[in-house]
């Protein structure tokens, strides 16, 4: 690890998912949720419940049965009234990262899959450091890889190893994977979906399944530069890498223009679809340095602080 490049940009070129320098930057971040969930165990996160943190929340009148220890005796001394001093409870957060491992993700320069893995690793690391419950799911037509319920910094190595060991295969079927996730995943929290969202079955049903869990959902669409600006010309028979479907095209100026317009429309439609349903949508080309994505874009979107 000591020989790892210090410059995050050079990390892009290596297979290494996270560098120590980047991890140290990530240490300062935490994953935010626009919703406040009740955790299961005491964590580092403010809970809806009043609890035992150091953060003052409110006063209330004593009722019989309250713990005498939490009575604010100073108030009683001054006002001769029994008031309880309430503190914010701090609980943990469920952070679930769903990342696409279908064949189509293993594409592009820079590679979409590696990019997705890095984002997943970074977010998972943040979660681990903040003592959140981190769940990682790799999906193609269903959930094929999962690492759930890890908590604490000590799982970092295990988590990275898990991610590195994942191969890209199969075809993506987001709806099925989301349904699967909805059944499997208990508890609320933050759900991040990293995919290209190029799913011939559509993404709408999958989004509905995710929403059913009442989670705080983030959708990150990752596309390679080859998909955004295709460098194709001539009369081609295009072969889909996932399902070997073919499309015969004669690449002409008008066709390229039409493709780009369609891509634009597809992304806009996805964004609108997400936004209407309270899902935060984030588009990223793999050419964007992923540290910039994490440190800047995700911050702007309010996912991390």
């Amino acid at each position: 690890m000591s020989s790892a490049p210090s410059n995050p940009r050079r990390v892009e070129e290596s297979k290494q998912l996270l560098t120590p320098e980047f991890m140290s930057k990530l240490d300062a971040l935490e994953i935010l949720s626009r919703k406040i969930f009740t955790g299961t165990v005491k964590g580092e996160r403010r809970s809806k419940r009043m609890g035992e943190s150091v953060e003052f929340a409110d006063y209330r009148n004593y009722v019989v049965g309250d713990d005498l220890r939490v009575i604010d005796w100073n108030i009683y001394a001054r006002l001769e009234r029994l008031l309880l001093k309430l503190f914010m409870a701090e609980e943990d957060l469920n952070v679930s990262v769903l990342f696409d491992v279908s064949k189509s993700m293993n594409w592009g320069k820079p590679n979409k899959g590696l990019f997705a893995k890095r984002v997943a690793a970074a977010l998972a690391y943040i979660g681990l450091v903040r003592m959140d419950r981190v769940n990682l799911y790799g999906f193609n037509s269903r959930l094929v890889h999962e690492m759930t319920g890890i908590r604490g910094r000590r799982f970092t190595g295990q988590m990275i190893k898990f991610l590195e060991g994942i191969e890209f295969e199969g075809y993506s079927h987001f709806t099925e994977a989301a349904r699967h996730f909805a059944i499997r995943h208990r508890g609320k929290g933050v759900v991040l979906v990293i995919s290209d969202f190029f799913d011939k079955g559509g993404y709408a049903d999958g989004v509905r399944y995710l929403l059913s869990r009442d989670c705080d959902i983030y959708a990150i669409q990752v596309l390679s530069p080859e998909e955004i600006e295709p460098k194709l010309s001539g009369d081609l028979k295009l072969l889909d890498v996932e399902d070997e479907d073919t499309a015969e095209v004669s690449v002409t100026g008008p066709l390229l223009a039409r493709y780009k317009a369609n891509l634009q429309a597809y992304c806009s439609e996805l964004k609108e679809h997400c936004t209407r349903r309270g899902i935060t949508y984030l588009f990223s080309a793999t050419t964007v340095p992923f540290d910039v994505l994490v440190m800047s874009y995700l911050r702007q979107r309010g996912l991390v602080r």
Partner: protein
Amino acid sequence: MGNWFLNPWALWIAGGVLPTLLILYFLKLRRKQETVPSTLLWKRAVQDLQVNAPFQKLRKNLLLLLQMLVLSAGVIALARPILKGTQTFDGRVVLMIDHSASMQTVEEDGRTRLAIAKEQALLQARRFNRTGSSWLQFAGVQPKTQLMVVSFAGDARVRQPFSTNINEIVAAIEDIQPVDGPSDLTEAMQMAEAYMSAPAMITKGMEDTPVSAAQPATLMMFTDGVIASAAESVSRAGRIVWYTIGAASDNVGITAFRTRRDYENPEILQAFVEVRNFGTQPVTTDLSIYLDGQLIDAKPIDLEPGMSEAAPPTNANGNDNAAPPATSAPAGADAGRSPEGSVVSLTFERPVLTAGHIEARLSRKDGFTLDNTAHAIIPAPRKLRVLLVTAKNWLLDQVLAGLPLEKVDTITPATYEAAPAGQLDQDGQSRYDVVILDKHATKRLPVGNYLCINTVPEGLKIETAGESDDYRLIWWDETHPVMRYVDLDFVAVQKGMKLATPPEAEKLSESNVGPAMVHIANDGRHYVIVGFAIENSDFPRKVAFPVFIYNAIRFLSSGGVAESDVRLRPGDALRVQLPAGSSAAELKLPGGRTATARADAAGVARFGGTERVGVYEALAGGKQIDRFAVNLEDPDESSIAPRAAPAFGGVDVQQGEMLKASTPEIWRWFAGIALVILLVEWWVYTRRATI
């Protein structure tokens, strides 16, 4: 549509080429395979471009559009479009094309009048319904105009009866070849009208009712108007459109050429040549006489202009495109009368000791070459041999002794009948040039020439009805070669035979009881029959008698025609007497072609295909037996200045408008457009490739 194109077949190419181009566009390309993460958006993009129908694709495909335009423009250029308004007659049209000698005149542009006439006829034919091709008819387009093609020269020939099939018409027109004979319009008109009349539907009781033609046909006449019989032509056609072909009038030609051997000195050849100038300029040239290709004599000629420039014989200029109104009757009345031209006659006398082919040749070149040469075949010099069959006739002996003959044999009738076959004849031909039968009727008549005095040979259709004592000569034909310089004015005849002659017999002299002297030809034999005995008259005492004998021997020895009158013109039949054992004569025609003529029972072969001028050679068994010279010798045909339409008995004659084949063609424009579109197409293609 078709009237706009000279090569309408090119449009059929378009029918094949353009769909082929479309098919090429529909054909699947051999595409390069390229793997992409997802075809989702590509398919959508392609679908967006294609939307629904292939026509959407085509509409957006600029390249295809441009290529279609290039092909269309190219094909239209191939079709040779012309800028010409359409004008069609409905009904029936007869295209009559003159292919006589004068139509071989070469015009200024180097083409013959016949070529121009054929081209004009083709252009006209193509202006009519082109729907003759069967599958357009099948598609329900009804043809409108029926066309007939008639070619005429000395005789007329229907090349193509009424038809709507343009291909047949074109083939019929293109098939017309020139002949060297004169034109005769009468037969052509009769033939055309025979076809033009509608099929008569005669019902019982209506036989006498004339059935008029269902549709009056239009006659289109493509001719230079050099037609001798034009003035006599009458037409029942509905309308005549007269296309005057040609403009040249400059011609100097040989209009007569005669040769003969001098009677006194047969080795001397006398040639008589008549040369006329039909042009408007004085001409100085020379005339050469060739014997078997060797020049033997030449003389210079000075000719005055044949006609004045101020008054050309025609009022219609063939190349005048402004269609004049229908020619009026006075203009028509002038037609058909050929201007005589200015004449120079030349006589040559040269000793020629062999038989041969004499050719007179004008050294001047003009547009009409047929009359610049004339041919003649001369026999070897020979004096005549005469057989006199008589009991005793010292008058004839005396006269014959005074004539320049090689030999005169005198035998009695009994000796004649008893003579062995070889003595009198050889291969059926008489050994003597002339046999004089004096009061001796016989059946023994080898092929030859006979002067029969007071007798009628057996086998002729001449009937004798006894003798008449009251016998007076009342008329004789002074123009006939036999009677030339024979004065019978004061000849008294005591008695003579009453003869009844068939119509084909030429009467040389008549008496009060019938023909007195007759020339008749039968089975290759020529007879001059004198219907009275010369000793029963004072004819021998007159100067006319030796002249008559001289003329008769000379006439008969030349084969029954006056030597100077031997003239064969194109279309005349050749008569070849074949040697015994030959059944057919081979004929070598001018121009190298050959023909065969079969002999009849009498061993005579006849050949009528003398369409070209020149020397015809008759062969039997590979051996030359006779030669014939066919000459134009027709001042009417040689006067090549185009003439206006005759009146045709008052039928509406319209001067036809010549169509131009060359100048109004606009295919170059289309070829240029094709090139420009091709450049644009190239630019579009390269622009597309660099995206």
